[in-house]
């Protein structure tokens, strides 16, 4: 009995001692996270990434335009729901027709699900009649990690001043059922309309749902 209670005492004391330290570490960690990841109302992290045609894009170059970032992976069942129903492409067409810059981002690492070459990305765009401004290839996950992108799809909207105004899901119905697209509330569609009407975004942070982004950890 005696040894075990001694161990327990040590254990507790160790925890008491470590608590302020852990707190400090967490606060620092939290600040780093907040700096690294993104927050609505804060400037969106700048990035430079090459698209499927080898052209470089930076966030900065689109200052003055609304920018949508869409994390994607063509093999993911959640992504397939939104492309199989033309839901994502319709939104891309509608948004880009109104001058929105729409960047689809592929952060799948080589060998992981959804990783494609530039040519494969282009043929996917053609096959699926997708209409993004560009498809960014992010095989090292740099853009993904800068934004804290977790899922495919995971959607972000950046306003004309470069401030993040929306992050989260494509809609309010987490599922892989194609039927659900008809009844779901499309948060990105709503947010874009609100921004264009000069209104604040009513649901600025929502749950992203989907497959995990296939980073190479």
């Amino acid at each position, binding site marked *: 009995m005696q040894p075990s209670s001694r161990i327990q005492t040590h254990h507790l004391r160790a925890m008491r001692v*470590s608590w302020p330290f852990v*707190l400090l570490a*967490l606060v620092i960690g939290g600040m780093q996270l907040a700096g690294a990841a993104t927050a609505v109302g804060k400037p969106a992290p700048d990035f430079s990434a090459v698209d499927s045609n080898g052209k470089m894009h930076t966030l900065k170059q689109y200052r003055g335009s609304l920018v949508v970032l869409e994390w994607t992976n063509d093999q993911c*069942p*959640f992504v397939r729901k939104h492309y199989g129903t033309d839901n994502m492409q319709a939104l891309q067409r509608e948004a880009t027709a109104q001058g929105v810059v729409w960047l689809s981002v592929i952060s799948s690492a080589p060998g992981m*699900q959804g990783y494609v070459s530039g040519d494969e990305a282009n043929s996917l765009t053609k096959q699926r009649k997708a209409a993004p401004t560009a498809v960014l290839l992010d095989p090292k996950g740099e853009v993904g990690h800068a934004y804290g992108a977790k899922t495919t799809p995971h959607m972000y909207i950046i306003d004309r001043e470069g401030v993040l105004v929306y992050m989260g899901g494509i809609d309010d119905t*987490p599922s892989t059922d194609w039927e659900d697209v008809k009844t779901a509330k499309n948060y990105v569609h709503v947010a874009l309309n609100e921004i264009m009407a000069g209104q604040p975004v009513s649901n600025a*942070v929502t749950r992203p749902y989907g*497959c*995990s982004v296939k980073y190479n950890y």
Partner: protein
Amino acid sequence: MYTARSLIAVTCLSLVAPVSEGAANVVRTPQSEVTLVSEVAQAAAGRRFWVGLYLKLRPGWHTYWTNPGDSGLATRIEWTLPQGLVAGTIRWPLPARFPTGNLMNYGYADEVVLLTRVSVLPSVDRGAPLAIAAHARWLVCAHICIPEEGRFELRLPLAVGAPVLDPRGRRLVARAEARLPRASPENARYAPNRDTLVLSVPLPKETTGAMQEAWFYPLEYGVVDHSAPQPFRVTADGVELLLTRGERRDDALEHLRGVLVIRHRDERQEGFTINAMRR
């Protein structure tokens, strides 16, 4: 290419196709084997009983808790029941953590029984066996995710008197019941700070005496960072956890809801439903 795609399409179809009736009330895929079990072989009017969606997964695969974490999807069950029967919502056994890089998922590996309580009203029609049909949809993930679904049906005769137990079903249900969270400790509280939430849960000494680890699984998305470490300390009357806030900074949140899972040094687990009032 075309042929390959058609093959994939056919495979996908066979994965989701409903399985034939009776004893073959099982959905088998390369990843999982799923069936519907009941703790009773014969139900009784005016009584309630558990049914369970029994998911067995191949090694390396997992499925999800009601809050799946940073990705994934919770299992859904739609019931079709005869008049006089009422099904509750899924009662989720204690989840486990599935970290991938800096993402965190909450769910189950190996096997899990998702329990639903079915009540038989006294007014139920006693003329025919009760047909309990479930359309279940679940997601299994390893490195990749595969949505699966199945339609299951149980036909249970009505007992003349007390319900008649089904030994295998009862065993599975009992195992799942033992893994359900216990009722919320009273006076659980949480205090929001700028980047953290401090969760205080009163617990008996038997529970806090040999704690190896405590983890709070939030019910809602975005309130707590799913993957951040959760340092804890044992206090005079329970446990205190330091949680990192998630993407939603809702200072008006009245209650922090979720499940607290405590792992003891002998690996035994205990779980509590948490409904912590804001301090």
